């Protein structure tokens, strides 16, 4: 698609994205010991009161969500749920009354496999065994009052209405479990691990992913792209930015797609972790360290239906301040529930790219310098032009001509040399350019030793280049502003525009330092605006040699040159 097409499509998408949605619709249901809420838009506050208006609980969500569960202890009758949500930019409030069933003395539920649905703990239940044993969980919930529940594993004390207890029940074979007056028959079904492994396929990991497991198209693929640590620290300390700064918030998600071609569903434990070399990468560990048991792994349970596919979505935690650029490995492996045998595993190289604080800071400094130079020029230009004689203006303009000719000639040479020497061509051709440029500027300063002469020359040169080659882009203008600010600034500091005679030392200060800084600013501009990369040592080399040393050498030639030309002017 052409750029115009992209632009049009962007406009349409933007319009669709910003179109006004409908009102906030909320569905609320009492489940066990609280309310489960599903809303048409993310909600941020859920407030639950009795029908008499007595406050029971308020939940202000750190991250707005469309599906929320809020636990309610001792509801004492029906409750009213007040919801505050956002539809677009508009805040909407909805209130719903929910009937709360009368509680019994206690309830018992069983989970045949971790992560599976809870079911009433009575009757017969099959427990798949992928190894010698498995564990199932029984959940006991108190009714309207504290209660002691006798079980085959001992009595369980539920100390308050609505309180819960979880029993882990080891299963190695068939067994019957009594809970109060309930009887639960557990039937052990042995499964073949190697057969299951052969039936399982782990598809490529999807990173970064949305919470629903689809690829996050807004971020670079297979990479963690972060601003510079300095910027992250600023955001963290000011509490601003896109992402919540709570340590438990994931940076993104990774989707682990698993296919099961076998005849029976498989319950799996899916684990992901990131390593730096052989060791788990500390900067990728879940923020709540106790949650991963110190392993650095994030786990999830996944049931893959027979002949089907499931996708586990696991959070990826990143220490956005501490993580360094480089390539890490994002591992994923699946084990059957109850067995340590790894059925499948995969590794995704995970690149971390960080913004460079020095380049970003340098770019900002360059911008400021450039704007200052241009603003100063705009402010003082009419005055310079009023005071200058026509001869001075023409001399200045024709020095611009000579500078253009010299720089174009050396550009051509540089370009040819660059085909062989690459970025090091300027180390050889720079001496010619710097010598030519320095003698011309020195002569100009000799003939017109006053503020504004350099700025006029640079400005006129930029505009002339624009007319001759069309080089009038924003980076060119920024560079021109910096050249003016640095050139005029250092010429003034050295005294050359304050009536001091031209000497090698003054010229070296005026041109050497300004050119070194100008080279640095130019590289920063290239780094940010043209997305180019330069090694630090290369930047130092450029600033040190063509930027500074060559100019110093040229200054030695420039002073006698300028002196001889002063005679011509006289």
């Amino acid at each position, binding site marked *: 698609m052409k750029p115009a097409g992209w632009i049009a499509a962007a406009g349409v998408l933007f319009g669709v994205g910003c179109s006004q949605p409908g009102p906030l619709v909320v569905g609320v249901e009492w489940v066990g010991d609280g309310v489960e809420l599903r809303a048409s838009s993310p909600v941020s506050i859920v407030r639950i009161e009795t029908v008499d208006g007595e406050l029971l609980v308020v939940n202000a969500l750190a991250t707005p969500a469309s599906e929320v569960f809020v636990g309610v202890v001792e509801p004492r009758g029906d409750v009213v749920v007040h919801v505050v949500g956002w539809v677009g930019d508009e805040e909407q409030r909805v209130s719903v009354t929910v009937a709360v069933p009368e509680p019994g003395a206690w309830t018992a539920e069983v989970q045949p496999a971790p992560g599976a649905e809870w079911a009433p703990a009575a009757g017969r239940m099959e427990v798949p065994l992928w190894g010698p044993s498995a564990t199932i969980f029984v959940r006991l919930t108190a009714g309207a009052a504290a209660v002691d529940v006798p079980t085959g594993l001992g009595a369980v004390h539920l100390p308050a209405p609505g309180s819960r207890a979880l029993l882990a029940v080891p299963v190695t074979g068939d067994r019957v479990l009594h809970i109060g007056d309930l009887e639960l028959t557990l039937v052990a079904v042995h499964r073949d691990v190697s057969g299951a492994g052969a039936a399982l396929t782990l598809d490529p990991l999807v990173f970064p992913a949305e919470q629903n497991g689809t690829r996050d198209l*807004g971020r670079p693929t297979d990479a963690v792209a972060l601003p510079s640590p300095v910027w992250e620290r600023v955001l963290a300390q000011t509490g601003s930015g896109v992402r919540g700064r709570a340590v438990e918030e994931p940076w993104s998600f990774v989707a682990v797609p698993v296919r099961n071609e076998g005849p029976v569903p498989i319950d799996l434990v899916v684990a992901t972790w990131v390593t730096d070399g052989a060791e788990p990468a500390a900067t990728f560990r879940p923020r709540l360290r106790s949650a991963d048991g110190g392993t650095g792994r994030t786990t999830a349970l996944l049931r893959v239906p027979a002949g089907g596919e499931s996708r586990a979505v696991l959070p990826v935690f990143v220490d956005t301040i501490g993580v360094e*650029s480089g390539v890490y490995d994002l591992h994923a492996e699946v084990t059957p529930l109850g067995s340590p045998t790894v059925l499948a595993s995969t590794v995704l190289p995970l690149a971390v790219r960080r913004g460079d604080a020095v380049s970003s800071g340098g770019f900002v400094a360059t911008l400021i310098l450039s704007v200052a130079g241009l603003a100063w020029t705009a402010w003082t230009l009419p005055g310079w032009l009023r005071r200058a004689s026509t*001869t001075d203006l023409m001399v200045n303009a024709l020095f611009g001509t000579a500078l253009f000719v010299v720089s174009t000639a050396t550009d051509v040479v540089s370009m040819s040399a660059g085909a062989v020497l690459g970025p090091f061509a300027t180390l050889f051709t720079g001496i010619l350019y710097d010598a030519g440029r320095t003698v011309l500027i020195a002569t100009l300063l000799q003939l017109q030793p006053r503020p504004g002469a350099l700025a006029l020359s640079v400005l006129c040169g930029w505009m*002339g280049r624009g007319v001759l080659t*069309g080089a*009038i882009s924003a980076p060119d203008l920024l560079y021109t502003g910096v050249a003016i600010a640095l050139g005029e600034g250092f010429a003034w500091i050295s005294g050359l525009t304050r009536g001091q005679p031209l000497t090698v030392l003054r010229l070296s200060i005026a041109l050497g330092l300004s050119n070194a800084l100008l080279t640095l600013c130019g590289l920063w501009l290239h780094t940010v605006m043209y997305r180019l990369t330069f090694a630090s040592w290369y930047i130092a080399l450029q600033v040190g040699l063509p930027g500074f040393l060559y100019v110093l050498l040229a200054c030695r030639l420039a002073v006698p040159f300028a002196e001889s030309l002063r005679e011509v002017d006289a």
Partner: protein
Amino acid sequence: MTHLICVDAAVYQFPSGGGVGPFSLRVAGGELVVLAGATGSGKSTVVRMIAGLVQRHGHGRMTGSVTVCGRDPGALSGGERVRVLGFVGQEVDDCILAGTCAGEVAFALESAGLPADRVGPALARVGLAGFEDRDPREISGGERQRLILAAALAAEPSVLLLDEPLSQLDPEGARAVVRVLRAVADEGVAVVLVEHRLGLLACADRVVTMGGRPPDRAVFHVERPAPAPAGDPVVHAARPLLDLRQVTFLYDGARGVHGVDFLVREGERVAIVGGNGAGKSTLIGLLSERFSPMLGAILRVGSVIEVPQNADLVLFSRTVAAELAYAPEEWGAAADLTILADFGLAGLGTRAPQALSRGQRLRLAVASTVAASPDVLVLDEAGSGQDPASLAGLFEAIRRRSTTTVFSSHDPELVAAIATRVVWLDGGRVVDDQPVAASRWLGLAGQVRVAPAAALLPLPLPTSPPPSTAARVGPEHRGLDARLRILLVGILGVLVVLFEGVVPLSGLACGCLVAALAHPRAVGWRRGLVVASALLAWSTALSQGLFWAAWPRTPVVQLGGLTLWKEGALHGLAQSTRFIALGAGGLLLALSTPSDELITALRARVGRFSLPFALVIMVAAMVRFVPVVAVEWAQVRRARRARGRPIWRRSPSAWLAVEVALLRPVVARCVRRARMLAESLDTRGFDPASPRGIARPLIWRTSDSVLLLGALAGLVGVSGCRVLYGLYTADVWYHSRLRPLYAFVRAAF
């Protein structure tokens, strides 16, 4: 009789010592007065005093009184200067700024606030009707001279001053200008001109000779150069040094020389003569190896060194003595400084060459070339603007050094006195090659010289062929407004910074490159443009391949301690499309828009803001002289090469010193040209502090507005998307509804 020009006991002291005057002169309306005298006698200074230039631009001290139309010319405002005075400077080519003849003439009218409808009549008056939209650089030298004359006359001034207006013209072109001057004077204008070639000015009312004679007297005095010594060896038995056989060299497929044959023997002094554009400079360039023949062959025995038309370009040393010693020392010989006295430069050995007077610089240029002991010395109109006596002295000095000489000239008197043989070129072909006594050209020139003034007037003015449609450019140009083009290139510059993806950047780069390559004016540039783009892509890929710091990194090749990374090279290749898009887009602007239009566009007012005209004029001057300075720099390098060893056969520091020294004549020329240009602008009413109108404004059409709005809308859309995405990736601001937009930006930008 009312005198329009009154100079009473005017004296001007130069800051460096020496002076002119006291000098008195009165000129009435209708008079055509010639100011003659030896080189350095102060003629130009007097004319500049009358024009008020010395008063406004000089650093010396002036006493006495000068009035023009009863006013002090130094105190006239810009508009008044244009109405009262017309001035034509020495170097016409250095006074032209505009890209069209009409623009050049309109400049003075803008200064005086006069309507642009005077442009046509002014051009017609000097025989340049229909030349409005032609580029002054593409017309002949004589036509340029008349163009400047038209610019000076457009505001119908009372006084017209000209400083050596005929020096660069052939006799025919000079006659044409003289006819115009006579006609102008006859209309009541007081005309004063400085000229050496008095033979062309028989129609003048008075000739005032400066230097020893009382001023304001109609005395015509010319010192004839000494006749050639009787024993001069013009013998066919002499050794042949240059042999041209059927040599052809053409510019633009037409101009140049066709099938030229001639022989130069040792000891000869060959004059190459002919009208402007006859091919003299081309032939000189072929002799001195500046050009290589397209057809035919040139046999050279020994060295041939040229002193170019502008002799300043030969002078690159710090002192006169160093200049003379350069060539001998390059070849390991001792310098012979007695040559200083031979060429009248005794006592000037420690002076900076560029600080000498014009005549001295010419003598030094010739002397330093002669010091290199060439077998053949070639001079390309090197003596123009010098008085006959000075030239006779110069050629005598050359003759004493026994150098075979080939020179081109317009001046029959000089040719008759100096040459042993005359080669007449016309239309790029040799039409006559005879010993001086039998030269047909000299015979015809003699007839011209004695023709009565009255007989000159009815003759038609020679002009170039009518301009072709393709050559016509100007306000009626059918295309986008120049301001819009500048804005579009600016928008392109922002877009290439905003886009990051290979697809849009490549699209922009390809679009711009193809458009630039397809432009008719890019015909000669196509290969260079493609090569430059390829080099740019290659060097950016190489640079980024070496410096790629992000991950992943796949090594491609190890270069010593450096590794070339695949991902970096690909990244560099993608990024180079930015530069190609920018460069090609800019070039397209430059190719498709005449500089004149661009400069007018720079004067555009946006709301209350507009660029100061003085800055615009600076840009125009900068742009105008880029090709001139480039050619001059090349000439300097060639002149040095002819007198010395190859530049790379020395230590790096010595090499650098030579490179820097070669800029000296270029810069000196720039300073001199700037002064001349400033005076030309000054006399055409330019004042840096005064606002002025635009005589020939650009026309902004509705279609331009539509296109601009479309481009701006696109730019705003792209920038907006980019800013939103930037806020998201920088962790600053995010909105879940914009996720499709973020995805789109990532995929498309």
